[in-house]
């Protein structure tokens, strides 16, 4: 039996919380389509966000076999999806039926996070810089936040997911917010944590998300192929993102398999069961009106960490010149 994904008018975060993949008889598509294993109906789509697009992109990528996508009926939507590279990256609808023009500080085209940006090159740096410069061209302070957060998330895909991923960012002038999504169709956070013997018996996706957002937690402690090797992993990527969202009054959503983590600013995060998402999708929204600097936020996090761990370190021996 084939599967079908029905896309709504608004392909956004709300949809991701309730998306369902239903059984589908491929014969309904007509003669010669019997071997289709996934049918994605995008005909109703008129509005898309990075969260919805990256989520759908990686859902499609996770399927083996023949895939059929019905394009949006609204031509503006179809052209927009072409222009941001949604179809290119999936290698479908290769016709170029749009007029290219500057993104005008609004979005950075969907970019694959693939193997060639992993090993010891500055490709991650360059990709993140492009995104930050496009969605916040005149705001270096805000760019610092974006670079810091996107860099952590892309490193997570390359180091932990065991798959490729995708990223997309858009600025919304009306709300002054930037939404960034980073998704992969890999093994998910729980499986990543289980590389660490400490979490070998971890069975719950909900627990995995709670643990992954704590400081000093990683699945790679024992993996010789990871940057820290020999139990030297930092395991703080999601923790820093969570703290920055908390202090900058942003929003953070993480989907990994059956669990959904949601954080609204400094409110207590909510972790609940949601629809099944193969891999991991991280979406964060930051408001450009926020005026603190990354340096100030990091100082606050550092002080809080010291208090929480009841340790005070003498740092006067650091030699800055």
């Amino acid at each position, binding site marked *: 039996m084939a599967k079908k994904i029905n896309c709504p008018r608004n392909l956004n975060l709300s949809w991701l919380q309730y998306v369902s993949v239903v059984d589908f008889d491929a014969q309904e598509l007509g003669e010669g389509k019997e071997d289709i294993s996934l049918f994605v109906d995008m005909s109703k789509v008129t509005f898309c966000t990075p969260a919805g697009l990256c989520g759908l992109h990686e859902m499609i990528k996770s399927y083996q076999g023949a895939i059929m996508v019905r394009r949006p009926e609204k031509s503006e939507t179809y052209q927009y999806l072409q222009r941001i590279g949604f179809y290119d990256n999936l290698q479908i609808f290769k016709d170029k039926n749009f007029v290219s023009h500057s993104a005008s500080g609004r979005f950075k085209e969907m970019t694959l996070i693939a193997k060639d940006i992993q090993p010891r*090159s*500055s490709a991650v740096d360059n990709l993140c810089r492009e995104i930050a410069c496009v969605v916040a061209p005149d705001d270096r302070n805000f760019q*610092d936040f974006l670079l810091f957060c996107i*860099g*952590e998330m892309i490193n997570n895909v390359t180091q932990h997911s065991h798959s490729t991923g995708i990223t997309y960012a858009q600025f919304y002038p009306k709300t002054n917010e930037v939404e960034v999504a980073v998704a992969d169709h890999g093994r998910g956070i729980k499986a990543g944590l289980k590389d660490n013997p400490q979490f070998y018996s971890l069975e719950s996706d909900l627990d995995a998300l709670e643990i992954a957002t704590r400081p000093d937690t990683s699945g790679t402690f024992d993996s010789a192929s990871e940057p820290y090797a020999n139990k030297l992993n930092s395991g703080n990527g999601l923790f820093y993102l969570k703290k920055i969202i908390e202090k900058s009054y942003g929003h953070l959503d993480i989907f990994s398999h059956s669990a959904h983590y949601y954080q609204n600013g400094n409110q207590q995060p909510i972790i609940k069961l949601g629809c099944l998402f193969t891999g991991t999708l991280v979406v964060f929204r930051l408001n450009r009106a926020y005026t603190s600097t990354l340096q100030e936020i990091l100082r606050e996090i550092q002080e809080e960490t010291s208090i929480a761990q009841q340790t005070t370190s003498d*740092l006067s*021996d650091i030699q800055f010149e």
Partner: protein
Amino acid sequence: MNIILTEQPDSFLLGSECALDIRINQLVPALKKGETVEIDFSNVRGTSQSWMNTFIMGTLLECGVDSLKYLKFQHCNPLVKELITFSVQKAKQRALQAA
């Protein structure tokens, strides 16, 4: 020994694999030989905390936190200083926990 991290102006260093490469091939070998290492952060606008932890915390945990006295951090802007300070603090906390 002097390590120049980047020649590209206004760099925000994010790929932790790069940090590991410099740590394994330059920083740790020099410290193990007892050399003083000057790390030049000119052109570095910032890094992710993971990048800095891979580079500094990883080195201190590998070579011992006492090796901090052989490290000199040059041309750091306030953000980079904050990132280094956080990383050193983490290394000291971990070393203390391990002891």
